[in-house]
C-alpha cells in the first residue's frame, strides 16, 4: 500500500519539474516570444544620397538604427533581427542583386554596432548610389520584446 510519504515525494518531484521549467532563462522570463514590429507608415524616412563616395557621381549614406525595448525586464538581453526595406520614390525595391548580376552602382549593407547601452541594439545601414538618388527606408524588426526604434542620419 502506498504511504503518505510516497505522495509527498511525488508532489515534490512535480514541483521541482515546474520550478525547472520556470527557472529564469538567459533570455526572457519563460521563453523567447518573437514579436514582429513595423510602423504603420508606408515608409519611415526619405533621404537623398549626396555625400561623396569613392568615385565621381557616386555617393554614400549612413543611417544609424537604434532598437529599444519598451517592456523588457531589467537584466535581460534584447534580441532583435532587423530587415531594412529600401525603395526608390517610384516604389521599386532596392537590391544588391539586379536579377542577373551584382549591382555595382547601387548597393547597401547592414552592420550591427556596439550600442554602448544595455538593452539596446544599434545598426548602421550604409547605402551607396548615384549622387542625388532619393530613397525611402522602412524598418522591419523581429525582437524578443515589444520595441521601438529611432533613425539617425549620420551624413
Amino acid at each position, binding site marked *: 500500500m502506498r504511504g503518505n510519504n510516497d*505522495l509527498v515525494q511525488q*508532489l515534490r518531484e512535480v514541483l521541482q519539474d515546474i520550478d525547472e521549467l520556470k527557472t529564469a*532563462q538567459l533570455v526572457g522570463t519563460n*521563453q523567447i516570444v518573437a514579436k514582429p514590429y513595423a510602423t504603420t507608415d508606408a515608409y519611415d524616412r526619405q533621404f537623398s544620397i549626396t555625400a561623396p563616395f569613392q568615385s565621381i557621381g557616386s555617393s554614400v549614406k549612413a543611417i544609424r538604427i537604434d532598437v529599444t525595448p519598451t517592456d523588457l525586464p531589467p537584466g535581460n538581453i534584447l*534580441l532583435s*533581427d532587423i*530587415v531594412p526595406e529600401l525603395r526608390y520614390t517610384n516604389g521599386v525595391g532596392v*537590391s544588391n542583386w539586379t536579377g542577373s548580376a*551584382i549591382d555595382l552602382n547601387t548597393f547597401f549593407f547592414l552592420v550591427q554596432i556596439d550600442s554602448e547601452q544595455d538593452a539596446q541594439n544599434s545598426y548602421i545601414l550604409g547605402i551607396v548610389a548615384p549622387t542625388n538618388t532619393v530613397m525611402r527606408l522602412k524598418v522591419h524588426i*523581429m525582437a524578443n520584446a515589444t520595441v521601438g526604434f529611432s533613425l539617425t542620419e549620420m551624413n
Partner: protein
Amino acid sequence: MQPRSANTITEIVANAQQKLREIKEVQLFGGDALNLKDFRQIFTMPGGITKDYCWRVTMTPTEPDFTMPIDTITKPNAPNQFGYMKTERVPKTDGTFEWLVFGSQFDFDPNQDTLFRVVYSGEATFQVTNLA
C-alpha cells in the same frame, strides 16, 4: 462527499508528472538555458570562371510565435581564402525570413567557398535556391 481513493490520487499525480516530462522534452527552450539551433550551408563559386552568383535562403518558421533569427555569419570556409560572398536581407510579409547570398568570381580566382550560418531560436525549415 466521497473521498478520493489513494489510487486516483496516485494516477492524477502520475499524469501530472508525465505531462511535465513531455513539456520539458518538447519545449523549444530548456529549463536553464536557451536552446539555439543553427543552419549551415556552404556556397561554392568555382574557379576559372568570371561570373556573379546568387542564392536565396528562405527560413520558414514552424513555430512562428517563438522563432526568429538571432545571428547570421558569413565567412570564408578556408583559412587562406580572402574572398567570400555577402548577404542581403529581403523584406518579407508572409512570416518567412529570407537572405540573398551573392558574390563575384573572376577567372583568375581559385574556388571560393563561403560558409553561411544562421543561428535561430524556435523551429524552422530552410530552403536554398540557386538564382544564378
